[in-house]
């Protein structure tokens, strides 16, 4: 089976209190980046896996997100298209 690299972005769900994002926003304001409206701090995960094709690899990674990588109560995720590894 071909190998793929797939990146996943996990961020706090929109509208939920995000104290980390708020703290980074405040720090950026202090540094003079006064036009920053909001910052969201999440996780970036890269999965290397074998699969029949890029689409199948993406579907598997979405399942991983639902089962483990993201918390369904508080987080949203986006799966990038798989690239050949």
């Amino acid at each position, binding site marked *: 089976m071909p190998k793929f690299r797939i990146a996943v972005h996990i961020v706090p769900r929109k509208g*939920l*209190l995000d*104290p980390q994002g708020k703290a980074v926003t405040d720090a950026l304001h202090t540094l003079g980046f006064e036009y920053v409206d909001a910052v969201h701090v999440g*996780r970036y995960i890269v999965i290397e896996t074998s699969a029949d094709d890029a689409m199948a690899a993406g579907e598997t990674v979405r399942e991983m997100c639902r089962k*483990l*990588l993201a*918390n369904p*109560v*508080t987080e949203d995720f986006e799966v990038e298209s798989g690239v050949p590894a």
Partner: protein
Amino acid sequence: MKFGIVTFPGSNCDYDAYHAITEILGEEAIYLWHKDHDLQNADVVILPGGFSYGDYLRAGAIARFSPIMQEVAAHAKGGGPVLGICNGFQILCEAGLLPGALLRNAHLQFVSARVRIRVENPDTMFTNLYQKGEILEIPVAHGDGRYFAPPASLDALEADGRVIFRYADASGTISADANPNGSERNIAGIINEQGNVLGMMPHPERACSPLLGSDDGVRLLESILARVAA
């Protein structure tokens, strides 16, 4: 009665729980290793505090998939008592045995302090020796203790009497000042629908002797004894 205390890699309150059960309560306790597939006939399971699997990914996210957790889930489904303290509470939420999630403290700091909690529901197998509205002094020590659930879920928990403890001040007032981590509605502990799985961030096992500043946690353990033995 036999208490099974689960040790995950990174658990650090398993001995505190063991001490409280054997020395204070005078009951039998055994350690259950996370790779075990057997609760060894424990009547009550305790998921202790700590940093299982280094809190990698999210607190409790990986411990949830330990072999022993399948047994704990089966025990819980069969009505067996399960007490999750601190990291144990986080694991129970990740495992879906309790609703909601525990997020980074709102002020982003680790909090290690003795706090006050108000007993909201004394009619459970974990709280039957307390009075409704009683204020307990129990320590907390966590970085991810902010209880969160969607508003509809919080309303349902409250309507069903499943919020067991709330952070309060000495007079019993529920206020933002008394809330050590920004938890929704000052929630410090909740129970499942069946009433046999309790998760709480404060550490009752560390409040078991006047020498340690408080023995308010003892009656929680005695409550289990009173109800399960009956």
